[in-house]
């Protein structure tokens, strides 16, 4: 990450899809704006030097008009240039975001699932902005400085070649060497500071998040000392880059002075020798004072290029992980279903091994059939790979071994649109969009009516919640569901899965964040879902660690240590599998013993059994 490939930024900038004509316009306007400043200096120098020779006033009239025009032109042109260049960058960011969305939508599903949400938002938000910024703050100023530098140097050389040459050299010093030094310093500070910055962030975060526990444990002072130490290392890293920045600043200032002195030293003898008119000497000496404005922003531009390159690397990594579109676009001719006796879609895992790419498999060798009318439960201790199995069954994660087939055809070979007409999954980290409750349910089905939405929410146990919302179904939820509690969010996602027209529904831990009574009622409703609108019976697969309600399931898969340790009905497992029995018993016996004590008294809080 510290040193992305050289082509990284170029590739990312190409994805901005910038319009060459707009870029040319921006460079032209920028050059003209700063050119006005240079011309203003040159013409005023000429005006004053010529005026001192006391010519007729009329001979100066063109110059006086020109000086005022340049004075106005500079501000106006600069304003236009800023508008055009920002427009170029903003258009580029839109193009890049759209491309990013399109590629991620068409590419491998696990590419997006593998990135944490915060990280995804940073890449799509700040990083794309940084790539766009390189146009406004990096590339365009560099282009303007180059065009203007060449133009000014040539113009001065026409008066007096040595002065033009000296100006060109000094411009290179200020516009190439100084930015290089700045970039070097910034890179050094950045590289040395990476670890210190990470430590600083982690420590500050830790102290702020856990101030109470740290104070009680007597470790607050040690942690603040660690923060101070990380900050000290960060300061040392900044110090390591500062000398280069100082050299750069000094060079920028030195270049202006040297250009003036060089013009003076070379020009004075030329005037004596008659090679240069005295008035022209004033122009050649004073113009450089205004010629360095364009180069003065280049050190900052160099730093921006570096920052943007790192951002570009992160954006491209996301794009490359998604790869080219892998979902087949056109549906193939339907093949005969393997189990002709069962109507509707049939999802079948055969020796499926599930896991994330590049990591050890989470679950091995699972055989499973989900068809309309069937109720399957996947249970097991935490960390047994239940969620990974669900993602694989839903076609969101390719199996690393074995096969997952829908009506006899490999899930991965089917277009996504066809898979979701048969089976939908709700995962525990599914997104709640920053829009109305109704629109959030319509994510599953676009033509959902308000009545259907209400019914689904009722079924998911959110009837009372809906009644309490200020605008009912039209209530806008905060981004990422921050305005709903954990349990409400879980049930909202469940309602969303219920409104999808797919006969097969896969649900991840619906009982999490709910008290036992609500959880059991919810699971019970899940086991008895009504048929789809087309009349197909529902097949339900529930991943859960709550075992009490599993008697309603046709089959329970008991996962342990990444394998199906046992399978059968709830009753069979209770009879034959000691681990399962113990788990159920501890869940139930505890509930029975505790319930009387938990019921809160009507009066104030009381102390029991003291």
């Amino acid at each position, binding site marked *: 990450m510290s040193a992305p490939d050289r082509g990284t930024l170029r590739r990312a900038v190409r994805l901005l899809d910038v319009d060459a004509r707009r870029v040319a316009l921006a460079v032209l306007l920028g050059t003209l704006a700063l050119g006005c400043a240079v011309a203003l200096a040159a013409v005023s120098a000429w005006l004053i030097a010529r005026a001192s020779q006391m010519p007729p006033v009329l001979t100066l009239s063109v110059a006086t008009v020109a000086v005022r025009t340049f004075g106005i032109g500079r501000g106006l042109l600069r304003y236009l240039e800023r508008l055009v260049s920002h427009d170029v960058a903003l258009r580029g960011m839109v193009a890049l975001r759209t491309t990013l969305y399109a590629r991620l939508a068409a590419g491998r599903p696990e590419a*997006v699932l593998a990135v944490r949400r915060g990280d995804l*938002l940073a890449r799509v938000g700040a990083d794309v902005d940084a790539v766009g910024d390189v146009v406004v703050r990096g590339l365009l100023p560099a282009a303007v400085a180059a065009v203007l530098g060449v133009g000014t140097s040539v113009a001065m050389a026409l008066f007096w070649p040595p002065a033009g040459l000296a100006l060109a050299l000094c411009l290179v010093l200020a516009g190439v060497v100084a930015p290089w030094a700045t970039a070097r310093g910034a890179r050094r500070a950045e590289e040395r500071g990476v670890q210190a910055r990470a430590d600083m962030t982690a420590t500050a975060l830790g102290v702020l998040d856990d101030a109470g526990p740290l104070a009680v444990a007597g470790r607050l002072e040690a942690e603040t000392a660690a923060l101070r130490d990380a900050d000290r290392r960060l300061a040392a890293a900044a110090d390591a880059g500062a000398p280069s920045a100082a050299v750069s600043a000094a060079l920028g200032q030195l270049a202006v002075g040297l250009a003036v002195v060089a013009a003076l030293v070379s020009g004075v003898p030329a005037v004596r020798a008659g090679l240069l008119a005295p008035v022209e000497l004033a122009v050649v000496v004073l113009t450089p004072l205004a010629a360095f404005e364009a180069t003065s922003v280049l050190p900052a531009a160099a730093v921006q290029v570096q920052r943007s390159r790192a951002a570009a690397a992160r954006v491209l990594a996301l794009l490359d992980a998604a790869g080219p579109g892998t979902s087949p676009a056109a549906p193939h001719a339907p093949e005969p279903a393997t189990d002709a006796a069962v109507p509707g879609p049939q999802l079948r895992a055969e020796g499926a091994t599930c896991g994330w790419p590049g990591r050890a498999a989470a679950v091995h060798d699972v055989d499973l059939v989900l068809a309309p009318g069937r109720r399957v439960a996947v249970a097991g201790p935490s960390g047994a790979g239940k969620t990974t199995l669900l993602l694989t069954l839903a076609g969101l994660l390719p199996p690393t071994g074995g096969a997952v087939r829908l009506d006899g055809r490999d899930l991965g070979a089917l277009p996504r649109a066809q898979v979701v007409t048969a089976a939908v999954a709700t995962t525990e980290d599914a997104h709640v969009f920053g829009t109305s409750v109704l629109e959030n349910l319509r994510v599953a089905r676009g033509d959902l009516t308000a009545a259907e939405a209400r019914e689904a929410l009722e079924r998911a146990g959110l009837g009372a919640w809906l009644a309490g919302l200020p605008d009912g179904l039209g209530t806008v939820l905060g981004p990422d569901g921050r305005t709903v509690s954990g349990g409400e969010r879980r049930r909202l996602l469940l309602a969303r899965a219920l409104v999808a027209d797919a006969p097969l529904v896969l649900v991840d831990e619906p009982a999490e964040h709910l008290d036992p009574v609500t959880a059991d009622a919810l699971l019970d409703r899940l086991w008895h879902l009504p048929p789809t609108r087309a009349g197909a019976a529902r097949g339900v697969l529930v991943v859960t660690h709550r075992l009490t309600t599993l008697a309603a399931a046709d089959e329970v898969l008991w996962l342990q240590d990444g394998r199906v340790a046992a399978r059968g009905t709830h009753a069979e497992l209770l009879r034959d599998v000691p681990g399962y029995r113990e788990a159920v018993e501890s869940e139930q016996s505890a509930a029975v013993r505790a319930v009387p004590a938990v019921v809160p008294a009507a009066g104030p809080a009381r102390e029991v059994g003291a």
Partner: protein
Amino acid sequence: MKPLDPRLLRYARSARGYLALTVGLGLATGGLVVTQALLLAHALGSAVADGATLPDVVPLVSGLLAVVVARALVAGVQERYAHRAATRAVAELREQVVEHAAAAGPRRAGEDAAGVVTLATRGLEALEPYFVRYLPQLVLAATLTPATLLVALGLDWVSFAVLVGTLPLVPVFMWLVGVMTQGRSARGLATMERLGSQVLDLLAGLPTLRAFGRERGPEARVRALGDAHRRATTGTLRIAFLSGMVLELLTTLSVAVVAVGVGLRLVHGGLDLVTGLAVLVLAPEVYAPLRQVGAQFHASTDGVAAAERAFAVLEAPLPVPGTLPAPDLARGEVRVRGLGVRARGGWAPASLDLTLRPGRVVALVGPSGAGKTTAVEALLGLLPPDAGTVRLVGADATGVDVADVDPRTYWRQVTWLPQRPVLEPGTLDALLGSPDPADRDRAAARTGLDAVVAALPDGWGTVLGAGGTGLSVGQRQRLALTRALLRPTSLVVLDEPTAHLDAAGERVVLDTVDALRARGSAVLLVAHRPSLVALADDVVAVQAAADPATVGAP
């Protein structure tokens, strides 16, 4: 918003020396710029008007060269120390904010927790451009601008009058533009933010859209939202850039007016060339710092805003810790009577009574939001209760309010396992206090830590990162439980210790609590699961109250 807030110098000591240095360098720059202009005007004037030879102007040119080198040095020194001062000042503010926020306890006034985290880690970094770019220019506006104006007065009072006349127009016009555009740009910014967050929302929801096969449609919406965002942004920029244009227009135009005026008076012989050239070179320098202040203004606003938020955190009053030594809880008790803490729209908890005694397990039960964790925080003295008392009662039955107790003498007797245990970095063995291996293995067998350690490549020597990275929350809980067993304290508080555990893990916790009770610790459990509740000697229901009037009612 003040350009230079005195509080910045109060809280960030590094900023003081830096400001002094910057003022010194600013004065030097003023002198150097004036000297450079005069030397240049004399050298050029004598060559243009009097036909001077190179040897004639050598003394002047040498002086000019010296000034040029000196200016380069000044620029270098400024840059060298600007970065240093910026990082130091940011670090000083960060440490104070973090320490203050930590000391203020869980219910600090003002900033919410997430806000303080962002402020401390990223927000304050925005002060760097303020220190490195903005502040030096601000100082120059106070040194270089008056210096050049004074010299202009000495040289040519007409030009001085033009410069002094236009100078006040700069702030006046900037203010006018600001007032006229404020409403529009505030609206524009709000639209921009809304559209921007909608695009990000769609992208963040992409996995979900894919799960339902609905990922194709929103692509057009991403583009449409993006275009609307761009149009809104351009509209805002069109107005935001106006102030920059006015600034440039005023400054460049008045330089042009000065140049034309000088030229015309030269023609009539009212002025000599050297003076004219000097004024011409000096005129742009009058405005240069102002223009830079304007250009760097936007880069500095984030930093100034961050600093103001930091001051708000720092100026929130801190509770004064008590000084009395805490009684020995091994033979005493913690007595909570009528405890109430104000929450949004009522009390959570409301009127809570409980007593913790050695060798007894108390379970706090109640629906989420009733204030169980808040009750624990109040009981530990981290949060001042709004009603009722928390008293520590010694063996001689003399009680002392927890607010009057020196917290360290109390906390030494407490082990607290929050829902997400925090562990310091180090090896597993060191985390447990390098105990006798036999004791360690016995304790680990009881908490189930032995199975966790067996699966680690380096066993007990495994190094954990900050926060216990490398272990799951459940595993961290086992580690923390083991530590509680090995170093039993008089009071042990376990907040939902089984939340992340399955049935087997839960049994381990139950065993551990039994062992702690047997050793004579007073144990407080915050419990959701019935199995934990069943284990307790006393069960206390925590209730929230919606209406403050009901508190204390029978």
